[in-house]
């Protein structure tokens, strides 16, 4: 690895005009990781490059999650026959500009990238029975125009609130624009009590858009089955625990829960979904 280009390329991909889909490994409901895993599985993604971690993550040991030692990863996969590249990555903890520039360097130098899609999950205080809306934020008016035929909210207004900072997705979109690369960040709301586990319906919402937009021809029958299974688990939890049902009823009526009630619902749902209903 050289200092200016912290990337290891294992194999040059043969791409002419590709699209890059980027998922963050640690977002709500593991959305980014689950979607990129799914794309790699369905489209037979093959790892061809990775960003070396030492500049972007503290190398003071390893984190342990679910009993397993974790190490930061930023891996690029090429999907043969689809002019598509998938990046599954941890969020860097330092040198963000250099990290995001490295992502775009790989995209430009090795993938001849045409468009970029960055995935993001938002915490929502709605019930899981509400439909998942997909929001698209483009880095140019022209890019926004190309999204007009799809079922997504393209009219988001947002400004960073005091005490907060922009997301890495916004930073990436801005850097992509500096390089004349069209980019879109796709945001899907995740009911807060599903954030620690998973939300199959939210995943399908994003994947359906990518399937249509990038003409991937993925058959989602396995994902539909997963959605059914999760819905059944959630329905069982409601009938087993009247308190859970009451909380969700209130969310369905657009009522807010107290902080304590939110915590209780999160805990109960996490237990239910982890033990399989």
């Amino acid at each position: 690895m050289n200092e200016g280009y912290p990337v290891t390329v294992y194999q040059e991909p043969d791409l002419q005009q590709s699209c890059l889909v980027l998922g963050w490994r640690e977002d709500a409901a593991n959305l980014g990781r689950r979607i990129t895993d799914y794309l790699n599985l369905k489209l037979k993604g093959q790892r061809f490059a990775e960003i070396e971690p030492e500049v972007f993550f503290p190398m003071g040991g390893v984190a342990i999650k679910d009993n397993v030692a974790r190490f930061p990863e930023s891996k690029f996969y090429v999907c043969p026959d689809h002019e598509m590249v998938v990046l599954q990555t941890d969020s860097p903890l330092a040198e963000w500009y250099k990290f995001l520039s490295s992502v775009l360097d790989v995209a430009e130098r090795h993938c001849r990238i045409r468009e970029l899609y960055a995935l993001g999950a938002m915490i929502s205080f709605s019930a899981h029975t509400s439909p998942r809306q997909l929001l698209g934020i483009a880095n140019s008016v022209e890019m926004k125009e190309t999204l007009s035929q799809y079922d997504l909210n393209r009219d988001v207004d947002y400004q960073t609130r005091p005490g907060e900072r922009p997301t890495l997705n916004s930073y990436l979109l801005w850097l992509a624009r500096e390089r004349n690369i069209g980019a879109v960040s796709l945001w899907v709301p995740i009911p807060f009590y599903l954030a620690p586990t998973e939300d199959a319906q939210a995943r399908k919402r994003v994947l359906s858009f990518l399937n249509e937009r990038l003409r991937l021809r993925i058959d989602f029958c396995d994902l539909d089955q997963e959605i059914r299974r999760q819905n059944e688990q959630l329905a069982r939890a409601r009938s087993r625990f009247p308190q859970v049902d009451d909380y969700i009823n209130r969310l369905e009526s657009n009522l807010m829960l107290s902080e304590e009630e939110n915590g209780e619902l999160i805990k109960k749902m996490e237990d239910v979904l982890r033990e399989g209903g």
Partner: protein
Amino acid sequence: MGIRLCQEPRLENPILVASWPGIGNIGIIAVDTLRGMLGAEELGQIEPWEFFYPKMVLIRKGVLESLEFPGSRFYFKRAGGGDIVFFIGEEQPTEGARIYAEGKKAYRMADLVLDVAERFQCRRIYTSGAAVALIHHTTKPRVWAVPNSESLIPEVEGYGNTVLMSDIEGRGGHGNITGLNGLLLGVAKKRGVEAICLMGEIPVYLQGLPLSYPKASKSVLEVLSDGLKVQADLNTLDELDQKVQQRVEEFYQQIPSEIRGQLDRLKQVSYTQPTEPGPITEEEEKKILEEVESFFKKQAEGG
């Protein structure tokens, strides 16, 4: 990547005045007030992306309109033979969870500021920050001055309401200046440029509060305008000071009465080396500090 200048004026005999945020934002308020008062023009900036994470995004109708980074900007003012270059850093480049800059990025930023200073042949640099002191908030803060060369000491001794580190009891002329307001002094010394850091006193019990302390900024501004030989309306900060003092007083009344009683005694403290025994002994000073610290610790744990 580095410096981006929007103009390159010919400046006469300039002095650079730099500041970044710090405790009570004492230095940056003083420097920015002076910059505004003199109507300094924008000169350029240090490109931010190497140093900072963006601070704000604006998305309008689904399109990312702008992404803003903390500014690190230069300004200049012609002042008839003693021109001034200002540098205002909106944030210190930090690494990890640290509050003040240190390490490679801090050094790099200090170097870039010095590059501009040398490009315009600045003969001196002033930086400015805060000095945490055992004083009361009703007393006028003094300014601790630290030059980067012995030859500047006689000049500093001539400034009003200013003390050298050796004047401060128990310090023996030693101390630290944290962050870029201090580091710039060192980098200037390395490059053979003379520099002085002016630090306004802030009461020890206010250092952790999210409040600016304009009373000390005013003290710094007095010394700075004297050093730069410019006329500054020193009352500009009075209105802000009154507002802050009101909040400080509200906070002060929440402190338990026995600790407040100890702090009240600071009204009589003269912090320079006493020629005769002062109103508070060394042991009492230590006790006050311990009690204040323990009070804030309990406050933090409780909320």
